[in-house]
C-alpha cells in the first residue's frame, strides 16, 4: 500500500497539477483575505480569521476535485488500473493509498496559510491578541472538511473515465454535502425535521468544530463520512469485475 501511496504523491509533485492548483488556491485566498475591499481583514478591523475559515470551504469545492479527479479516472482510461490491480495489492489498499495521497496534498495547501495566523497575531492590539483556540479548532475543522471532500473526490473519480466529468460530479456533491442539507432543511414542508436534516450536512459540524470545541460527535461524523464514500468507491470499482 505504501508503494501506491508514494507513487501517487510523487506523481502529484512531479506534474504541474499540484503546484498550479495549490498556487491558485493560495493566490485566491490571499487576495480575498488581504486585498479585495469587501472581504479584506484589514478593513474589517478585528484580529480574527473567521472570514478566512468561512471562505476556504468554497475554495476547497474547486481545489479538491482538481486534485482527486485523476485518481481512478486516469488509471482506467490509460488501462494502468489493470496493471495495478493484478499486483498483490487489494482494492481497498489502493483506495486508501489514493485517498491519503490526495489528503496530504490538501494538507500541503493548508500549511502555508499559517502565515495568515502569524500576520494577524502580529497586527493585533496588543500584539498576539487572537483567539488561538478557535484558530486551532478551525484548522482541525478545515482538515476534516478536506478529508470529507477528498473522499467524495475519490468516489467521483471511480464513476467515470473522464476527468472533467469526475471534477464536476465532485464539485457538485461537495457543494451539496456542505450546504445542500441546510437549504433542504429550510424548505417549508420539511421544517419539522430541520435539525435532523442540517445535522446530516457538513456545514453544521464544521461550524461546531470551528468554535474551538472538538466534539467527538463531529469527529465521528467526519470519519464516518469519509469511510462511507470510500466504501462506495470500493463498491463501484469492485462491481466492474
Amino acid at each position, binding site marked *: 500500500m505504501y508503494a501506491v501511496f508514494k*507513487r501517487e504523491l510523487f506523481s502529484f509533485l512531479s506534474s504541474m497539477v499540484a503546484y498550479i492548483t495549490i498556487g491558485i488556491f493560495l493566490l485566491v485566498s490571499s487576495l480575498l483575505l488581504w486585498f479585495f475591499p469587501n472581504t479584506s481583514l484589514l478593513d474589517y478591523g478585528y484580529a480574527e480569521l473567521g472570514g478566512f475559515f468561512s471562505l476556504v470551504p468554497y475554495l476547497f469545492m474547486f481545489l479538491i476535485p482538481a486534485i482527486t479527479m485523476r485518481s481512478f479516472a486516469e488509471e482506467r482510461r490509460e488501462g494502468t*488500473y489493470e*496493471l495495478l490491480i493484478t499486483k498483490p495489492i487489494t482494492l481497498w489498499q489502493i483506495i486508501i493509498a489514493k485517498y491519503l495521497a490526495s489528503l496530504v496534498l490538501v494538507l500541503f495547501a493548508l500549511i502555508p496559510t499559517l502565515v495568515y495566523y502569524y500576520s494577524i497575531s502580529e497586527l493585533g492590539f496588543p500584539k498576539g491578541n487572537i483567539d488561538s483556540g478557535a484558530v486551532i479548532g478551525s484548522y482541525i475543522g478545515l482538515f476534516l472538511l478536506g478529508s470529507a471532500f477528498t473522499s467524495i473526490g475519490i468516489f467521483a473519480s471511480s464513476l467515470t473515465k473522464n476527468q472533467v466529468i469526475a471534477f464536476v460530479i465532485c464539485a457538485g456533491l461537495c457543494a451539496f454535502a456542505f450546504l445542500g442539507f441546510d437549504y433542504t432543511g429550510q424548505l417549508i414542508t420539511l421544517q419539522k425535521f430541520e435539525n435532523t436534516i442540517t445535522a446530516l450536512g457538513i456545514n453544521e459540524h464544521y461550524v461546531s468544530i470551528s468554535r474551538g470545541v472538538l466534539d467527538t460527535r463531529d469527529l465521528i461524523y467526519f470519519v464516518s463520512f469519509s469511510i462511507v464514500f470510500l466504501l462506495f468507491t470500493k463498491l463501484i470499482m469492485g462491481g466492474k469485475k
Partner: protein
Amino acid sequence: MSISVKNLSKHYDKQKAVDSISFEAKPGRILGFLGPNGAGKSTTMRMLTGYLEPTSGEAEISGENISTHTIEAKKHIGYLPENTPLYSDMYVKEFLNFIGDAYNLSNLSARVDEVIKKVGLTPEQHKKIGMLSKGYRQRVGLAQAIIHNPAVLILDEPTSGLDPNQLVDIRALIKELGKDKTVVISTHIMQEVEAICDDIIIINKGKIVANNSLEGIKKAHQGSSLEDIFRKLTA
C-alpha cells in the same frame, strides 16, 4: 501444474465470453493461446490474473486458487496486459522500483538493474516511459512482469505492433524466459506460434476447439499448415 483451469466461465448478461473452459499449463513450456478477435482470450487471461471475477469455475496458479487466495496467487504471476498499459509520467527505473515495491521485494535496486539488463533496456533506462518507442515500452512491460521472478508469465499479445527486428528480440526473450517458467501468450501471428510455442490452445466463441502440442496438432490434421488449421477450426 502451474496453471490449472476447471470449467472457467465468464458471462456478460446472456453473452458467454468464456464458456466453461478447462486446461492446464506445465512449467518449462510455452503455451500459445490462439483465437479470432473476441474469442475470449483476453477475458480468460484477465480471470487468471484476478482482474476479472469468473462467473463460475475455478483457476489455480501454482496451487493457489485465484478467487479465494487472490493475493497469494497474484504473487506467482507476472502479467503483461493487452496494449501494455504503463505510467507514462514515470521514469523507467522509478516505475520498476514502484512495481518491485508493490511486490515487497528486498534488494530492489540490484534486481531492477538485473531486469533492465535482461530485457535489453540499458540504453533507455534513464528516460521517461512516455518518451520510449513501442518496442522499448514493450520491454518495460516485460521487465515489470518478471521483476519478482514469477513461476507463471501471462502475456497478452506481447508482440503486437512491433517491427521485425523488435519481434525477433522479444520472441527470443520470451523463449528464454519459458525455459524455467510457465508461459502463456496470446497472439494472432501463426509464425510466432511456430517459432516459440510448445503447446497450443485454440479458442473460438468462448470454447476450446483444440488443445494439443504443436507437433500433435499438426499430426492430427495431416500436416496442413497452422494457418489452415486455425481457419478450419474457427471459421
